[in-house]
């Protein structure tokens, strides 16, 4: 269990810059996800932490020790690879035992057959076998110890890889998209297991993923990466409710956040959507409003803006309704309507959308978040909203 500090790390591959001045501190026992689209540098950052890749500039500190000059094996980290990287010629027990054998046995004691009879090796081997059994029990794979990785299912291989990682009691766990090779159902299940494992071990976890659901559901904190930079770090709620950048707002959340072009009335600062008063006051630089689908209300007869229902998806528990606005034909608004509202039968009909004014976000031309708050009478309700 250790704190991991990343300070101003940069990395280039040839002419392409993969990481630019990335900084992040991961507290002892924290579960932090590095999330971003492919090519954003998240895997490279993880590999730099592990020591498999060397940074061009910057510093990595693990438990207050600078590790830049240490080999991966000396950093006391464990990694779970996307491909699991299990040794295919060794059975599950030997796979899990590998880091312990490397730590505790010298190269003569590791020799096949002869190694067993060398002084000290039988005691060490007994200790290793016990720890392997404990780890296997913890992950519920005791019955698989004699099998080869080729005879295991994807989920079982995943567990063996986790077992190999946790058996050596590392300072931190590095997980590189460990669930991406599993089918959807198993992924949900393993998500829970990894989160539970983290709770039980109280260890530092650094988890790389491109799947925002994984990041949201498991992490204490999320670091969103784009184009080699960490653009926002925060708890899942912070990142979801208060994105500091339009790219974060777009990347996190499914269905995607609605982005609507906006004109800000000079003077009063009222944000106008196609001329209609949105009910919020925004900074003059705002060019775009963002509204999460669940903050969009849709009604057949009254609302802020009128449009046509273009598509509706019934998910059983809720419905996703897409409305093309009459006044802004380039804008498709997605609303998350509750179960049983029956919008799937009303595709093609007219609908009116309105927004929860407390949850409207505004962004400027560069994609940065700008201030925006409810403040003036809502034209649809006619009620005055007092606001400081």
């Amino acid at each position, binding site marked *: 269990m250790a704190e991991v500090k990343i300070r101003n790390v940069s990395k280039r591959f040839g002419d392409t810059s993969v990481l630019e001045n990335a900084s992040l501190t991961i507290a002892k026992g924290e579960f932090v996800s590095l999330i971003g689209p492919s090519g954003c540098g998240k895997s490279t950052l993880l590999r730099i932490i592990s020591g498999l890749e060397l940074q061009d500039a910057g510093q990595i500190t693990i438990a207050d020790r600078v590790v830049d000059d240490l080999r991966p094996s000396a950093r006391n980290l*464990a990694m779970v*690879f996307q491909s699991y990287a299990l040794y295919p*010629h060794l059975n599950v027990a030997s796979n899990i035992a590998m880091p312990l054998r*490397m730590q505790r046995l010298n190269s003569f004691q*590791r020799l096949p057959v002869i190694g067993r009879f060398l002084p000290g090796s039988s005691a060490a081997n007994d200790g290793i076998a016990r720890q392997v059994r404990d780890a296997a029990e913890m992950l519920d794979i005791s019955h698989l110890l004699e099998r*080869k990785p080729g005879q295991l299912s994807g989920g079982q291989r995943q567990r063996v890889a986790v077992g*190999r990682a946790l058996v050596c009691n590392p300072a931190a766990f590095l997980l590189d998209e460990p669930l991406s090779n599993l089918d959807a159902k198993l992924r949900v299940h393993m998500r829970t297991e990894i989160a539970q494992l983290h709770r039980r071990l109280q260890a530092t976890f650094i988890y790389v993923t491109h799947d925002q659901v994984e990041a949201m559901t498991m992490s204490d904190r999320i670091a969103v990466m784009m184009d080699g930079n960490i653009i926002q770090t925060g708890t899942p709620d912070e990142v979801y409710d208060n994105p500091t950048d339009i790219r974060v707002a777009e990347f996190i959340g499914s269905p995607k956040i609605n982005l609507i072009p906006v004109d800000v009335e000079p003077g009063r600062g009222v944000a106008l959507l196609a001329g209609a008063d949105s009910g919020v006051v925004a900074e003059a630089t705002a060019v775009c409003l963002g509204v999460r689908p669940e903050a969009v209300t849709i009604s057949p007869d009254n609302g802020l803006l009128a449009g046509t229902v273009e598509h509706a998806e019934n998910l059983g528990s809720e419905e996703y309704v897409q409305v093309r606005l009459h006044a802004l034909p380039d804008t498709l608004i997605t609303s998350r309507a509750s179960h049983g509202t029956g919008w799937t039968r009303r595709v093609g009909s007219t609908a009116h959308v309105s927004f929860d004014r407390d949850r409207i976000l505004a962004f400027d031309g560069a994609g940065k978040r700008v201030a925006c708050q409810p403040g003036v009478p809502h034209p649809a309700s006619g009620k005055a909203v007092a606001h400081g």
Partner: protein
Amino acid sequence: MADVTLAGNRYQAAQKRADRRRTSMREFRMQGLAWMLALPALFLMGMLLLGPLLAVVLLSFTDYSLGNGSLDWRGLDNYQAMLGDDIFYKSIGNTLAYVGIVVPGSLVLGLGAALLIESLTRGKAFWRAVYFLPVMATLIAMAIVWEFMMSARFGIIPQTLALLGFPAKNWLQETATALPVLCIIGIWQSLGFNMVLFMAGLSGIPRSLYEALELDGGSSAWTRFWTITWPMLAPVTMFVVIITAIRSFQVFDTVHVLTKGGPNNATMVLIYQIYQEGFDFFRSSYAAALTVVFLVFIFILTVIKARTIENKVHYS
């Protein structure tokens, strides 16, 4: 309306009967067609593979010699003669010694060359081509080059060894060294092929395994090789061993060009003895019996290959 239906029913019944007849006819015709299509292949296989094999086996039970108009059945006479033939023992021993030296030699050196070339950052293609050259060159032509190189008076090898204090002689004409020299040429010749096979095997090992081992604490080249490279190459190694063994059993070109089995039968190998018996002494039936022995060896190797490669050394 009813008439139409009745007529329809009757039509359908007739149709069904015709269908059934047609089905059996079709099956028959299909089977006939299948045999017809397979016939050329079967014919060629019989003519070119099984026929000659059978002829050789039958011939080994006769007293036929090349050019004779007739032949007599002699049962196991040829095999009995073989048991009393010193040259036969000599050639079996030499062949096994040759295989026993060339297989491990070209395996270790081929793997070494593959590992060294793979570790290069530049010039991989060049070195690959250099090592592969002997494989592509005709061995007969190369054997002539070796003959020059081994020549006592101006060959580069005896002359170089002479500088180191060894007597300047043609090592191919010495009873004690002729076979080892042939082995060296054999290794030189098959090294490149094995190297290419090993390189293919090496490129199939996922990089992430080495990375996992690096994190697990195995960072020395020695550990990497014995923990990952060697076990992961096991299927390729098995293949290389069998292929090289079969090819070494068939050693002939270099013997024919360089030593003719001499001196004192020191380099007499199975195939060369078959050649001599069949085409120098015209004892075709005895040559056939030797061929049967040779085929038994090849057959054993093939069985081992089929058993182990297909069952034992694959991991998934």
